[in-house]
Protein backbone atom coordinates (compact mmCIF):
# COMPACT_ATOMS: atom_id res chain seq x y z
CA UNK A 1 0.00 0.00 0.00
CA UNK A 2 1.43 3.36 -1.00
CA UNK A 3 -0.79 5.60 1.12
CA UNK A 4 -3.12 4.63 3.95
CA UNK A 5 -5.37 7.01 5.85
CA UNK A 6 -6.80 5.40 8.97
CA UNK A 7 -9.65 6.82 11.01
CA UNK A 8 -8.45 10.38 10.42
CA UNK A 9 -10.43 13.14 12.09
CA UNK A 10 -9.90 16.86 11.71
CA UNK A 11 -11.88 19.73 13.22
CA UNK A 12 -11.66 23.49 12.79
CA UNK A 13 -13.12 25.38 15.77
CA UNK A 14 -15.61 22.58 16.45
CA UNK A 15 -16.57 22.16 12.77
CA UNK A 16 -15.77 18.65 11.58
CA UNK A 17 -13.81 18.72 8.31
CA UNK A 18 -12.85 15.04 8.25
CA UNK A 19 -14.76 12.41 10.17
CA UNK A 20 -13.13 8.99 10.64
CA UNK A 21 -11.78 8.89 7.10
CA UNK A 22 -10.38 5.55 5.94
CA UNK A 23 -8.68 5.38 2.56
CA UNK A 24 -6.05 3.23 0.92
CA UNK A 25 -4.16 3.99 -2.27
CA UNK A 26 -2.25 1.22 -3.99
CA UNK A 27 1.26 1.59 -5.39
CA UNK A 28 1.11 3.30 -8.79
CA UNK A 29 -2.60 4.04 -8.51
CA UNK A 30 -4.32 7.28 -9.47
CA UNK A 31 -7.05 7.89 -6.92
CA UNK A 32 -9.40 10.79 -7.50
CA UNK A 33 -11.08 12.27 -4.43
CA UNK A 34 -14.26 13.99 -5.52
CA UNK A 35 -16.96 15.83 -3.65
CA UNK A 36 -18.83 19.11 -3.43
CA UNK A 37 -17.19 22.31 -2.17
CA UNK A 38 -16.44 22.18 1.55
CA UNK A 39 -16.65 18.39 1.80
CA UNK A 40 -13.10 18.15 3.18
CA UNK A 41 -11.25 16.84 0.13
CA UNK A 42 -8.55 19.53 0.15
CA UNK A 43 -8.20 19.14 3.93
CA UNK A 44 -7.61 15.43 3.40
CA UNK A 45 -4.89 16.16 0.86
CA UNK A 46 -3.26 18.73 3.17
CA UNK A 47 -3.31 16.22 6.05
CA UNK A 48 -1.53 13.66 3.84
CA UNK A 49 1.00 16.32 2.82
CA UNK A 50 1.54 17.30 6.46
CA UNK A 51 0.41 20.89 5.95
CA UNK A 52 -2.36 20.22 8.50
CA UNK A 53 -2.10 18.17 11.68
CA UNK A 54 -4.77 15.56 12.35
CA UNK A 55 -6.82 15.45 15.55
CA UNK A 56 -7.09 11.65 15.53
CA UNK A 57 -6.12 8.70 13.37
CA UNK A 58 -2.96 7.99 11.43
CA UNK A 59 -1.44 8.48 7.99
CA UNK A 60 0.95 6.00 6.40
CA UNK A 61 3.12 6.45 3.33
CA UNK A 62 5.01 3.43 1.99
CA UNK A 63 4.27 1.44 5.18
CA UNK A 64 5.81 4.23 7.32
CA UNK A 65 3.65 6.16 9.75
CA UNK A 66 4.04 9.86 8.94
CA UNK A 67 1.23 11.31 11.06
CA UNK A 68 3.58 13.61 12.96
CA UNK A 69 6.39 13.77 10.41
CA UNK A 70 7.11 17.24 8.98
CA UNK A 71 5.96 17.84 5.37
CA UNK A 72 9.40 17.84 3.75
CA UNK A 73 10.29 14.50 5.31
CA UNK A 74 7.22 12.72 3.89
CA UNK A 75 8.63 12.75 0.35
CA UNK A 76 5.40 13.92 -1.23
CA UNK A 77 4.99 16.52 -3.97
CA UNK A 78 1.97 18.73 -4.26
CA UNK A 79 0.52 20.65 -7.17
CA UNK A 80 -1.61 23.48 -5.84
CA UNK A 81 -4.79 24.90 -7.32
CA UNK A 82 -3.01 28.21 -8.04
CA UNK A 83 0.18 26.26 -8.97
CA UNK A 84 2.10 28.23 -6.29
CA UNK A 85 4.96 29.03 -8.65
CA UNK A 86 7.53 31.38 -7.15
CA UNK A 87 6.96 34.62 -9.10
CA UNK A 88 10.50 35.98 -8.80
CA UNK A 89 12.17 32.83 -10.12
CA UNK A 90 12.51 31.55 -13.67
CA UNK A 91 10.85 28.32 -14.74
CA UNK A 92 14.21 26.56 -14.39
CA UNK A 93 14.70 27.85 -10.85
CA UNK A 94 11.12 27.01 -9.94
CA UNK A 95 11.51 23.41 -11.07
CA UNK A 96 14.88 23.00 -9.41
CA UNK A 97 13.93 24.84 -6.21
CA UNK A 98 13.46 21.74 -4.05
CA UNK A 99 16.70 20.19 -5.29
CA UNK A 100 18.65 23.35 -4.45
CA UNK A 101 17.08 23.40 -0.98
CA UNK A 102 18.28 19.80 -0.56
CA UNK A 103 21.75 20.99 -1.60
CA UNK A 104 22.11 18.68 -4.57
CA UNK A 105 25.04 19.46 -6.86
CA UNK A 106 24.54 22.02 -9.62
CA UNK A 107 25.14 19.38 -12.29
CA UNK A 108 22.51 17.06 -10.77
CA UNK A 109 20.00 19.90 -10.47
CA UNK A 110 20.52 20.87 -14.10
CA UNK A 111 20.15 17.28 -15.32
CA UNK A 112 17.03 16.56 -13.28
CA UNK A 113 15.40 19.87 -14.22
CA UNK A 114 16.09 19.23 -17.90
CA UNK A 115 14.57 15.74 -17.63
CA UNK A 116 11.43 16.94 -15.78
CA UNK A 117 11.03 19.86 -18.20
CA UNK A 118 11.28 17.51 -21.17
CA UNK A 119 8.68 15.12 -19.72
CA UNK A 120 6.20 17.94 -19.14
CA UNK A 121 7.04 19.81 -22.35
CA UNK A 122 8.34 23.03 -20.78
CA UNK A 123 11.97 22.64 -21.88
CA UNK A 124 11.71 25.69 -24.14
CA UNK A 125 10.35 27.89 -21.34
CA UNK A 126 13.15 27.46 -18.81
CA UNK A 127 14.31 31.07 -18.97
CA UNK A 128 10.87 32.61 -18.53
CA UNK A 129 9.18 33.82 -15.37
CA UNK A 130 5.74 32.55 -14.32
CA UNK A 131 3.91 35.75 -15.34
CA UNK A 132 5.14 35.21 -18.90
CA UNK A 133 3.40 31.81 -19.13
CA UNK A 134 -0.11 30.81 -20.11
CA UNK A 135 -2.36 28.89 -17.68
CA UNK A 136 -1.53 25.55 -19.28
CA UNK A 137 2.22 26.27 -19.25
CA UNK A 138 2.10 27.22 -15.57
CA UNK A 139 0.31 23.98 -14.89
CA UNK A 140 3.01 22.00 -16.68
CA UNK A 141 5.74 23.84 -14.75
CA UNK A 142 3.96 23.00 -11.48
CA UNK A 143 3.84 19.34 -12.57
CA UNK A 144 7.54 19.44 -13.50
CA UNK A 145 8.38 20.90 -10.08
CA UNK A 146 6.38 18.10 -8.47
CA UNK A 147 8.00 15.27 -10.37
CA UNK A 148 11.62 16.51 -10.34
CA UNK A 149 12.05 15.26 -6.78
CA UNK A 150 10.88 11.74 -7.61
CA UNK A 151 8.41 11.68 -4.70
CA UNK A 152 6.64 8.64 -3.26
CA UNK A 153 3.25 10.28 -3.81
CA UNK A 154 1.93 13.10 -6.00
CA UNK A 155 -0.84 15.17 -4.46
CA UNK A 156 -2.84 17.26 -6.94
CA UNK A 157 -5.21 19.81 -5.43
CA UNK A 158 -7.72 20.81 -8.12
CA UNK A 159 -4.91 21.59 -10.59
CA UNK A 160 -7.27 21.93 -13.55
CA UNK A 161 -9.87 24.20 -12.00
CA UNK A 162 -8.23 27.44 -13.20
CA UNK A 163 -8.07 26.34 -16.83
CA UNK A 164 -10.66 26.94 -19.52
CA UNK A 165 -12.78 24.00 -20.68
CA UNK A 166 -10.70 23.10 -23.75
CA UNK A 167 -7.37 23.25 -21.96
CA UNK A 168 -8.82 21.29 -19.04
CA UNK A 169 -9.63 18.35 -21.33
CA UNK A 170 -6.14 18.51 -22.85
CA UNK A 171 -4.37 18.72 -19.47
CA UNK A 172 -6.55 15.92 -18.10
CA UNK A 173 -5.28 13.67 -20.86
CA UNK A 174 -1.72 14.81 -20.22
CA UNK A 175 -1.95 14.05 -16.49
CA UNK A 176 -3.35 10.63 -17.33
CA UNK A 177 -0.51 10.00 -19.80
CA UNK A 178 2.05 11.26 -17.29
CA UNK A 179 0.67 8.91 -14.66
CA UNK A 180 0.89 5.98 -17.03
CA UNK A 181 4.45 6.79 -18.09
CA UNK A 182 5.71 7.38 -14.54
CA UNK A 183 3.70 4.66 -12.84
CA UNK A 184 3.59 6.97 -9.81
CA UNK A 185 1.07 7.01 -7.00
CA UNK A 186 -1.18 10.03 -7.38
CA UNK A 187 -4.03 11.45 -5.34
CA UNK A 188 -6.01 13.99 -7.34
CA UNK A 189 -8.65 16.15 -5.71
CA UNK A 190 -11.45 17.70 -7.72
CA UNK A 191 -15.05 18.83 -7.45
CA UNK A 192 -15.59 18.04 -11.13
CA UNK A 193 -17.29 14.68 -11.52
CA UNK A 194 -16.37 14.38 -15.22
CA UNK A 195 -12.71 14.87 -14.29
CA UNK A 196 -13.07 12.25 -11.55
CA UNK A 197 -14.75 9.67 -13.78
CA UNK A 198 -12.36 10.11 -16.71
CA UNK A 199 -9.10 10.41 -14.79
CA UNK A 200 -9.15 8.02 -11.88
CA UNK A 201 -8.19 4.35 -11.60
CA UNK A 202 -10.53 4.56 -8.61
CA UNK A 203 -12.54 7.40 -7.19
CA UNK A 204 -13.46 8.21 -3.61
CA UNK A 205 -16.60 10.26 -3.09
CA UNK A 206 -16.46 12.53 -0.05
CA UNK A 207 -19.36 14.32 1.58
CA UNK A 208 -19.35 16.33 4.81
CA UNK A 209 -15.97 14.93 5.81
CA UNK A 210 -16.97 11.29 5.30
CA UNK A 211 -15.98 8.85 2.57
CA UNK A 212 -19.22 7.73 0.98
CA UNK A 213 -17.88 5.27 -1.57
CA UNK A 214 -14.58 4.13 -3.06
CA UNK A 215 -14.43 2.17 -6.28
CA UNK A 216 -13.64 2.22 -9.96
CA UNK A 217 -15.48 4.89 -11.95
CA UNK A 218 -17.68 2.19 -13.53
CA UNK A 219 -18.58 0.74 -10.11
CA UNK A 220 -19.32 4.06 -8.46
CA UNK A 221 -21.33 5.38 -11.38
CA UNK A 222 -23.10 2.10 -12.13
CA UNK A 223 -23.77 0.96 -8.55
CA UNK A 224 -23.76 4.01 -6.29
CA UNK A 225 -23.84 2.98 -2.64
CA UNK A 226 -26.30 5.66 -1.61
CA UNK A 227 -28.54 8.40 -2.93
CA UNK A 228 -25.90 11.14 -2.43
CA UNK A 229 -23.32 9.36 -4.61
CA UNK A 230 -26.00 8.50 -7.18
CA UNK A 231 -27.09 12.13 -7.47
CA UNK A 232 -23.60 13.64 -7.25
CA UNK A 233 -22.19 11.67 -10.18
CA UNK A 234 -23.76 12.11 -13.58
CA UNK A 235 -24.81 15.04 -15.71
CA UNK A 236 -27.70 15.67 -15.83
CA UNK A 237 -28.08 14.14 -12.36
CA UNK A 238 -30.00 11.00 -11.50
CA UNK A 239 -33.79 11.32 -11.85
CA UNK A 240 -35.39 10.66 -8.49
CA UNK A 241 -38.74 8.93 -9.00
CA UNK A 242 -41.26 9.58 -6.29
CA UNK A 243 -43.79 7.04 -5.10
CA UNK A 244 -46.49 8.29 -7.40
CA UNK A 245 -44.32 8.23 -10.53
CA UNK A 246 -45.77 5.98 -13.22
CA UNK A 247 -42.22 5.13 -14.35
CA UNK A 248 -41.31 2.92 -11.39
CA UNK A 249 -43.35 0.55 -9.31
CA UNK A 250 -44.10 2.36 -6.08
CA UNK A 251 -42.85 0.62 -2.95
CA UNK A 252 -43.27 2.09 0.52
CA UNK A 253 -39.99 3.21 2.15
CA UNK A 254 -38.07 3.08 -1.14
CA UNK A 255 -36.65 5.86 -3.27
CA UNK A 256 -36.14 4.94 -6.91
CA UNK A 257 -33.78 6.66 -9.30
CA UNK A 258 -32.90 6.38 -12.97
CA UNK A 259 -30.06 7.87 -14.99
CA UNK A 260 -31.16 10.22 -17.81
CA UNK A 261 -29.50 7.96 -20.43
CA UNK A 262 -31.72 5.09 -19.22
CA UNK A 263 -34.95 7.02 -19.80
CA UNK A 264 -35.91 5.76 -23.26
CA UNK A 265 -38.22 7.66 -25.58
CA UNK A 266 -40.04 5.48 -28.09
CA UNK A 267 -43.24 3.87 -29.18
CA UNK A 268 -44.12 2.15 -25.92
CA UNK A 269 -44.35 3.11 -22.27
CA UNK A 270 -45.94 5.93 -20.31
CA UNK A 271 -47.33 8.93 -22.20
CA UNK A 272 -45.53 12.22 -21.51
CA UNK A 273 -45.17 15.70 -22.94
CA UNK A 274 -41.83 17.33 -23.79
CA UNK A 275 -41.47 20.61 -21.86
CA UNK A 276 -37.95 21.65 -22.81
CA UNK A 277 -35.11 20.40 -25.00
CA UNK A 278 -31.51 21.42 -24.26
CA UNK A 279 -28.93 20.60 -26.91
CA UNK A 280 -25.48 19.92 -25.45
CA UNK A 281 -23.48 18.97 -28.53
CA UNK A 282 -23.90 15.31 -29.45
CA UNK A 283 -26.53 14.76 -26.74
CA UNK A 284 -29.77 16.56 -25.93
CA UNK A 285 -31.48 16.75 -22.54
CA UNK A 286 -35.22 16.29 -22.84
CA UNK A 287 -37.24 17.60 -19.88
CA UNK A 288 -40.55 15.76 -19.54
CA UNK A 289 -43.70 16.71 -17.67
CA UNK A 290 -43.25 13.55 -15.58
CA UNK A 291 -40.47 15.42 -13.72
CA UNK A 292 -37.65 13.46 -15.31
CA UNK A 293 -34.93 14.29 -17.82
CA UNK A 294 -33.98 11.98 -20.66
CA UNK A 295 -30.61 12.06 -22.42
CA UNK A 296 -30.88 11.21 -26.12
CA UNK A 297 -28.65 11.64 -29.18
CA UNK A 298 -29.20 15.15 -30.53
CA UNK A 299 -30.39 13.93 -33.93
CA UNK A 300 -33.11 11.84 -32.21
CA UNK A 301 -34.43 14.63 -29.97
CA UNK A 302 -38.18 15.30 -30.02
CA UNK A 303 -39.61 18.78 -30.50
CA UNK A 304 -40.65 20.87 -27.53
CA UNK A 305 -44.38 20.30 -26.83
CA UNK A 306 -44.34 16.90 -28.56
CA UNK A 307 -46.11 13.94 -26.98
CA UNK A 308 -43.85 10.92 -26.47
CA UNK A 309 -43.88 7.58 -24.74
CA UNK A 310 -41.35 6.92 -21.99
CA UNK A 311 -39.97 3.58 -20.92
CA UNK A 312 -37.66 2.75 -18.02
CA UNK A 313 -36.45 -0.83 -17.68
CA UNK A 314 -36.63 -2.23 -14.19
CA UNK A 315 -32.97 -3.31 -14.41
CA UNK A 316 -31.96 0.32 -14.88
CA UNK A 317 -33.72 1.54 -11.74
CA UNK A 318 -31.55 2.24 -8.65
CA UNK A 319 -33.44 1.73 -5.38
CA UNK A 320 -32.51 3.28 -2.04
CA UNK A 321 -33.89 3.00 1.45
CA UNK A 322 -36.01 6.12 2.04
CA UNK A 323 -34.71 6.57 5.58
CA UNK A 324 -31.00 5.74 5.39
CA UNK A 325 -30.73 6.51 1.65
CA UNK A 326 -28.47 3.43 1.34
CA UNK A 327 -28.71 1.26 -1.77
CA UNK A 328 -31.09 -1.66 -1.48
Amino acid at each position, binding site marked *: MSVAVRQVRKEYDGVVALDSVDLEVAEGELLVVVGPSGCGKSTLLRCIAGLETVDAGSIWIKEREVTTVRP*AARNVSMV*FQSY*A*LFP*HLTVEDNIGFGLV*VREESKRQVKEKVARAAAVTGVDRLLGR*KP*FQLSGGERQRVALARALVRDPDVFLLDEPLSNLDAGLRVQMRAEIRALHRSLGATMIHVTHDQVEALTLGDRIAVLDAGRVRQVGTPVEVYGRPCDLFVARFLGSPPLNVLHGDSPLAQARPGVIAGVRPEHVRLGGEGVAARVELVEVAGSDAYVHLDLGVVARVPTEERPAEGAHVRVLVRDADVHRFDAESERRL
Partner: protein
Amino acid sequence: MPEHRLSTWSRRTAAAIAAAVFLLPLWFMVSGSLREPGTPPPRTPELLPWPVSVESYRDAFGLVDLARHTANSLAVAALTVPIAVLVAAWAGFAMLLLTPRARNVLVVLSFAALMVPITALLVPRLTLFRSLGVIDTWVPLIAPALLGLSPFYVLLFHWSFRRIPAELFEAARLEGMTPFRTWRRLAMPLVRPVTAAVALLAFIASWSNFLEPLVYLFDSDLYTLPLGLRSLEVLDRTNYPILLAGAVVATAPVVAAFLLAQRYFLHEDRGAGWLGR
Protein backbone atom coordinates in the same frame (compact mmCIF):
# COMPACT_ATOMS: atom_id res chain seq x y z
CA MET B 1 -10.55 67.65 -28.43
CA PRO B 2 -11.19 63.95 -27.80
CA GLU B 3 -12.18 63.08 -24.25
CA HIS B 4 -9.14 60.89 -23.50
CA ARG B 5 -6.74 63.65 -24.62
CA LEU B 6 -8.50 66.10 -22.34
CA SER B 7 -8.19 63.70 -19.43
CA THR B 8 -4.48 63.08 -20.20
CA TRP B 9 -3.91 66.84 -20.42
CA SER B 10 -5.69 67.54 -17.13
CA ARG B 11 -3.80 64.69 -15.41
CA ARG B 12 -0.47 66.08 -16.60
CA THR B 13 -1.40 69.60 -15.49
CA ALA B 14 -2.37 68.33 -12.04
CA ALA B 15 0.90 66.37 -11.82
CA ALA B 16 2.90 69.47 -12.87
CA ILE B 17 1.17 71.62 -10.22
CA ALA B 18 1.78 68.99 -7.53
CA ALA B 19 5.44 68.67 -8.60
CA ALA B 20 5.84 72.48 -8.52
CA VAL B 21 4.44 72.65 -4.98
CA PHE B 22 7.18 70.27 -3.82
CA LEU B 23 10.02 71.30 -6.11
CA LEU B 24 9.81 75.12 -5.88
CA PRO B 25 10.80 75.32 -2.18
CA LEU B 26 13.73 73.02 -2.95
CA TRP B 27 14.76 75.22 -5.86
CA PHE B 28 14.47 78.44 -3.81
CA MET B 29 16.65 76.78 -1.18
CA VAL B 30 19.31 75.99 -3.82
CA SER B 31 19.08 79.41 -5.50
CA GLY B 32 19.22 81.15 -2.09
CA SER B 33 22.36 79.23 -1.21
CA LEU B 34 23.99 80.50 -4.42
CA ARG B 35 23.72 84.17 -3.35
CA GLU B 36 26.80 85.92 -2.04
CA PRO B 37 27.30 85.42 1.74
CA GLY B 38 25.85 88.20 3.86
CA THR B 39 23.31 89.37 1.28
CA PRO B 40 19.71 89.67 2.47
CA PRO B 41 16.94 87.43 1.13
CA PRO B 42 15.43 88.65 -2.19
CA ARG B 43 12.15 90.60 -1.89
CA THR B 44 10.52 88.57 -4.67
CA PRO B 45 11.00 84.91 -5.57
CA GLU B 46 14.27 84.57 -7.43
CA LEU B 47 14.90 81.67 -9.82
CA LEU B 48 18.66 82.28 -10.04
CA PRO B 49 20.70 84.95 -8.24
CA TRP B 50 23.19 87.14 -10.05
CA PRO B 51 26.08 86.86 -9.59
CA VAL B 52 26.00 83.11 -8.81
CA SER B 53 28.35 82.36 -5.91
CA VAL B 54 29.46 79.22 -4.09
CA GLU B 55 31.13 81.24 -1.34
CA SER B 56 28.34 80.36 1.11
CA TYR B 57 29.22 76.66 0.85
CA ARG B 58 32.90 77.41 1.56
CA ASP B 59 31.90 79.58 4.53
CA ALA B 60 29.43 77.02 5.87
CA PHE B 61 32.10 74.29 5.83
CA GLY B 62 34.56 76.76 7.39
CA LEU B 63 32.31 77.92 10.23
CA VAL B 64 31.24 74.45 11.29
CA ASP B 65 32.86 71.07 10.60
CA LEU B 66 30.00 70.13 8.27
CA ALA B 67 32.09 67.46 6.55
CA ARG B 68 32.61 65.60 9.81
CA HIS B 69 28.95 66.00 10.81
CA THR B 70 27.83 64.73 7.41
CA ALA B 71 30.16 61.75 7.74
CA ASN B 72 28.83 61.10 11.26
CA SER B 73 25.22 61.22 10.02
CA LEU B 74 26.10 58.86 7.18
CA ALA B 75 27.80 56.46 9.59
CA VAL B 76 24.83 56.46 11.97
CA ALA B 77 22.37 55.98 9.07
CA ALA B 78 24.55 53.25 7.53
CA LEU B 79 24.25 51.27 10.75
CA THR B 80 20.66 52.20 11.62
CA VAL B 81 18.95 51.59 8.27
CA PRO B 82 20.06 47.98 7.59
CA ILE B 83 19.44 46.96 11.20
CA ALA B 84 15.99 48.60 11.21
CA VAL B 85 15.02 46.98 7.88
CA LEU B 86 16.26 43.55 8.98
CA VAL B 87 14.57 43.61 12.38
CA ALA B 88 11.30 45.07 11.04
CA ALA B 89 11.21 42.44 8.26
CA TRP B 90 11.99 39.61 10.70
CA ALA B 91 9.34 40.82 13.14
CA GLY B 92 6.76 41.26 10.35
CA PHE B 93 7.49 37.76 9.06
CA ALA B 94 7.48 36.22 12.55
CA MET B 95 4.00 37.67 13.10
CA LEU B 96 2.89 35.73 10.04
CA LEU B 97 3.85 32.45 11.71
CA LEU B 98 1.74 33.12 14.81
CA THR B 99 -1.86 32.08 15.40
CA PRO B 100 -4.38 34.66 14.14
CA ARG B 101 -5.28 35.61 17.69
CA ALA B 102 -1.68 36.25 18.78
CA ARG B 103 -1.09 38.12 15.54
CA ASN B 104 -4.07 40.42 16.17
CA VAL B 105 -2.87 41.14 19.71
CA LEU B 106 0.53 42.17 18.32
CA VAL B 107 -1.05 44.40 15.67
CA VAL B 108 -3.09 46.19 18.36
CA LEU B 109 -0.01 46.54 20.58
CA SER B 110 1.96 47.93 17.63
CA PHE B 111 -0.72 50.56 17.04
CA ALA B 112 -0.67 51.44 20.74
CA ALA B 113 3.13 51.80 20.61
CA LEU B 114 2.79 54.05 17.56
CA MET B 115 0.67 56.46 19.58
CA VAL B 116 3.36 56.98 22.22
CA PRO B 117 5.13 60.32 21.43
CA ILE B 118 8.92 60.18 21.11
CA THR B 119 9.25 62.90 23.78
CA ALA B 120 7.61 60.60 26.32
CA LEU B 121 10.40 58.09 25.73
CA LEU B 122 13.29 60.54 26.08
CA VAL B 123 13.64 60.48 29.87
CA PRO B 124 13.28 56.69 30.34
CA ARG B 125 15.69 56.12 27.46
CA LEU B 126 18.17 58.65 28.83
CA THR B 127 18.06 56.88 32.22
CA LEU B 128 18.52 53.49 30.54
CA PHE B 129 21.40 54.57 28.32
CA ARG B 130 23.09 56.42 31.18
CA SER B 131 22.92 53.29 33.35
CA LEU B 132 24.45 51.36 30.46
CA GLY B 133 27.22 53.96 30.19
CA VAL B 134 26.65 54.69 26.52
CA ILE B 135 25.78 58.37 26.74
CA ASP B 136 27.91 60.51 24.40
CA THR B 137 28.25 57.64 21.94
CA TRP B 138 26.20 56.74 18.87
CA VAL B 139 24.72 53.69 20.61
CA PRO B 140 21.54 55.52 21.80
CA LEU B 141 20.97 56.72 18.20
CA ILE B 142 21.35 53.27 16.70
CA ALA B 143 19.80 51.14 19.47
CA PRO B 144 16.12 51.84 18.49
CA ALA B 145 16.89 50.11 15.16
CA LEU B 146 17.19 46.87 17.14
CA LEU B 147 13.44 47.21 17.69
CA GLY B 148 12.76 47.96 14.02
CA LEU B 149 12.95 51.74 14.66
CA SER B 150 9.15 52.09 14.50
CA PRO B 151 6.20 49.68 14.89
CA PHE B 152 4.93 51.19 11.65
CA TYR B 153 7.79 49.57 9.70
CA VAL B 154 7.04 46.19 11.28
CA LEU B 155 3.36 46.54 10.36
CA LEU B 156 4.28 47.57 6.79
CA PHE B 157 6.33 44.41 6.35
CA HIS B 158 3.71 42.26 8.05
CA TRP B 159 0.92 43.51 5.78
CA SER B 160 3.10 43.00 2.72
CA PHE B 161 3.97 39.43 3.68
CA ARG B 162 0.28 38.71 4.27
CA ARG B 163 -0.43 39.65 0.65
CA ILE B 164 1.72 36.74 -0.52
CA PRO B 165 -0.53 33.72 -1.15
CA ALA B 166 -0.25 31.14 1.64
CA GLU B 167 0.22 28.42 -0.98
CA LEU B 168 3.67 29.81 -1.84
CA PHE B 169 4.78 29.39 1.77
CA GLU B 170 3.22 25.92 1.88
CA ALA B 171 5.07 24.96 -1.30
CA ALA B 172 8.29 26.14 0.37
CA ARG B 173 7.49 24.07 3.46
CA LEU B 174 6.97 20.98 1.32
CA GLU B 175 10.37 21.59 -0.26
CA GLY B 176 11.96 21.60 3.19
CA MET B 177 12.61 25.31 3.61
CA THR B 178 13.15 26.55 7.17
CA PRO B 179 11.26 29.72 8.21
CA PHE B 180 14.51 31.72 7.94
CA ARG B 181 15.25 30.48 4.42
CA THR B 182 11.62 31.08 3.44
CA TRP B 183 11.94 34.66 4.68
CA ARG B 184 15.22 35.22 2.85
CA ARG B 185 14.62 33.37 -0.43
CA LEU B 186 10.88 33.73 -0.89
CA ALA B 187 9.31 36.49 1.20
CA MET B 188 11.92 39.25 0.89
CA PRO B 189 12.30 39.13 -2.91
CA LEU B 190 8.53 39.50 -3.19
CA VAL B 191 8.33 42.68 -1.10
CA ARG B 192 11.19 44.70 -2.64
CA PRO B 193 9.17 47.94 -3.01
CA VAL B 194 8.22 47.78 0.68
CA THR B 195 11.84 47.11 1.65
CA ALA B 196 12.88 50.17 -0.38
CA ALA B 197 10.14 52.27 1.25
CA VAL B 198 11.06 51.18 4.78
CA ALA B 199 14.77 51.75 4.08
CA LEU B 200 14.02 55.24 2.78
CA LEU B 201 11.75 56.10 5.72
CA ALA B 202 14.34 54.76 8.18
CA PHE B 203 17.08 56.77 6.44
CA ILE B 204 15.03 59.98 6.62
CA ALA B 205 14.20 59.31 10.28
CA SER B 206 17.85 58.72 11.14
CA TRP B 207 19.20 61.56 8.95
CA SER B 208 16.81 64.21 10.25
CA ASN B 209 16.93 63.07 13.88
CA PHE B 210 17.67 66.22 15.88
CA LEU B 211 16.20 65.65 19.33
CA GLU B 212 17.99 62.45 20.30
CA PRO B 213 21.51 63.56 19.24
CA LEU B 214 20.85 66.79 21.14
CA VAL B 215 20.04 64.82 24.31
CA TYR B 216 22.65 62.06 24.06
CA LEU B 217 25.68 63.70 22.39
CA PHE B 218 28.01 66.21 24.08
CA ASP B 219 31.26 65.72 22.17
CA SER B 220 31.06 67.95 19.05
CA ASP B 221 33.22 65.44 17.15
CA LEU B 222 30.30 62.99 17.38
CA TYR B 223 27.67 65.51 16.30
CA THR B 224 25.39 64.54 13.45
CA LEU B 225 24.36 66.93 10.67
CA PRO B 226 21.16 68.33 12.31
CA LEU B 227 23.29 69.42 15.29
CA GLY B 228 25.84 70.92 12.85
CA LEU B 229 23.08 72.94 11.19
CA ARG B 230 21.96 74.10 14.59
CA SER B 231 25.55 75.26 15.31
CA LEU B 232 25.61 77.09 12.00
CA GLU B 233 22.44 78.94 12.94
CA VAL B 234 23.79 79.80 16.39
CA LEU B 235 27.13 81.08 14.99
CA ASP B 236 25.76 83.28 12.18
CA ARG B 237 21.99 83.57 12.58
CA THR B 238 21.43 86.31 9.97
CA ASN B 239 23.67 84.98 7.23
CA TYR B 240 20.87 83.57 5.17
CA PRO B 241 22.85 82.14 2.15
CA ILE B 242 25.16 80.21 4.50
CA LEU B 243 22.20 78.72 6.38
CA LEU B 244 20.64 77.69 3.07
CA ALA B 245 23.94 76.19 1.91
CA GLY B 246 23.92 74.04 5.07
CA ALA B 247 20.31 73.09 4.35
CA VAL B 248 21.25 72.02 0.81
CA VAL B 249 24.05 69.83 2.19
CA ALA B 250 21.56 68.28 4.63
CA THR B 251 18.84 67.76 2.04
CA ALA B 252 20.90 66.44 -0.89
CA PRO B 253 21.46 62.90 0.51
CA VAL B 254 17.73 62.53 1.24
CA VAL B 255 16.84 63.55 -2.33
CA ALA B 256 19.54 61.19 -3.67
CA ALA B 257 18.18 58.34 -1.51
CA PHE B 258 14.68 59.01 -2.80
CA LEU B 259 15.86 59.00 -6.42
CA LEU B 260 17.70 55.72 -5.81
CA ALA B 261 14.67 54.09 -4.17
CA GLN B 262 12.29 55.52 -6.76
CA ARG B 263 12.99 52.80 -9.32
CA TYR B 264 11.65 50.23 -6.87
CA PHE B 265 8.45 52.25 -6.43
CA LEU B 266 7.83 53.09 -10.08
CA HIS B 267 9.35 50.20 -12.01
CA GLU B 268 6.80 47.46 -12.32
CA ASP B 269 8.92 44.44 -11.57
CA ARG B 270 6.32 41.92 -12.61
CA GLY B 271 8.66 39.07 -11.80
CA ALA B 272 8.20 39.93 -8.16
CA GLY B 273 4.94 41.84 -8.34
CA TRP B 274 2.88 39.04 -9.85
CA LEU B 275 1.79 36.88 -6.97
CA GLY B 276 0.31 34.01 -8.90
CA ARG B 277 -3.28 35.02 -8.50
